[in-house]
């Protein structure tokens, strides 16, 4: 499958996360790396510049992939989802802010911030006004 535009990619990624929401198991893999395939900057190493990839002449795009980790064999062929998009260096900021939003919304099975301690403290404070010794919580 070819690379998607950012909008399509985020739509598919949201779908991917939503598909996991009702279930109690599953995986989502996200990968990012430099997109150096078919780039014209493939300079040959020379004595002065032995590692041309360390200092490319211009910023390179990134490729972002997302998959649900299903294999393509046997029964899972229809379940496999694999999407990718290319992010140009100029769009990095905008892309990552949206990426963060989608991830935060999608990763709902993570532990929410634990507020029980703060609540217990507040309760203790209220009690502490009247009684002396605070109970160990």
């Amino acid at each position, binding site marked *: 499958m070819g690379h998607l535009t950012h909008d399509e990619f985020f739509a598919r990624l949201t779908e991917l996360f939503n598909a996991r929401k009702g279930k109690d198991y599953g995986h989502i893999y996200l990968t990012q790396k430099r997109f150096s395939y078919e780039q014209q900057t493939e300079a040959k190493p020379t004595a002065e510049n032995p590692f041309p990839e*360390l200092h490319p002449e211009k910023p390179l795009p990134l490729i972002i992939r997302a998959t649900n980790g299903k294999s393509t064999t046997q029964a899972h062929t229809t379940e496999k989802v694999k999407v990718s998009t290319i992010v140009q260096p100029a769009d990095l900021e905008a892309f990552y802010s949206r990426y963060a939003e989608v991830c935060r919304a999608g990763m709902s099975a993570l532990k929410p911030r634990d507020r029980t301690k703060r609540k217990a403290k507040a309760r203790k404070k209220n009690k502490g006004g009247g009684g002396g010794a605070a109970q160990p919580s």
Partner: protein
Amino acid sequence: MPYYAKSEDWLNQSALLLQARPDTTRVMTKYHIERAHRLTKSEKAALTQRSTAVGADGKRGVYPKPPPPPPPSTAPAGGVQKPARGHLVLKTYDPVSGTTLMYKTSKAAEVGRLVQMLGQLGRKMAALPDIPKTREEIMTDGGGGAPAIQQQEGKSAAAAAAAGAGGSGAQTPVVVPRTSTPAQQTQPTQPPAQQAQQGGGGGGGGGGGGKNKKKKGKR
């Protein structure tokens, strides 16, 4: 490979790895959900039965494949069912040197920060310059606020990538030094500076510990 205890350590070491091998290093993020309870025998049997039934249907090939069965969360688990637990694993991997750096969390509060870190690493991958730090960040770093110091830090970072210095106990395997020659020349003189920096970080952590102690005393 062991996990880093702090996401900051993971970010620093990943940045060093990216600096050394920007072309091949990739950052993988795995989000996975697991059942909070073990399956009982009957539940397992029900699951396997269902999957074999689907397989038989597929083999017959007369009918189009039925839609996947509903999730087994509907199965009675007896009493209150714990919600499934999710984990997030960040992994920086360089297939050429085999270096793997990992960080694991299960806190939702960290997701935003971690994706921001992915963005920072993305900038390095794209060979874009870092966003200049705000004044506050420079203050907390303990630097004088001069850009020259930042450049120095960058150089020592390159040397550290070659030396493969471990951040928080997790040892980074030695990356074959592929940094450019100026960084290699400065390498022998750099390790003390790097250690001094780490010592500074440790001191900061100690300060944080002191703060906590104070709070305990109040109680």
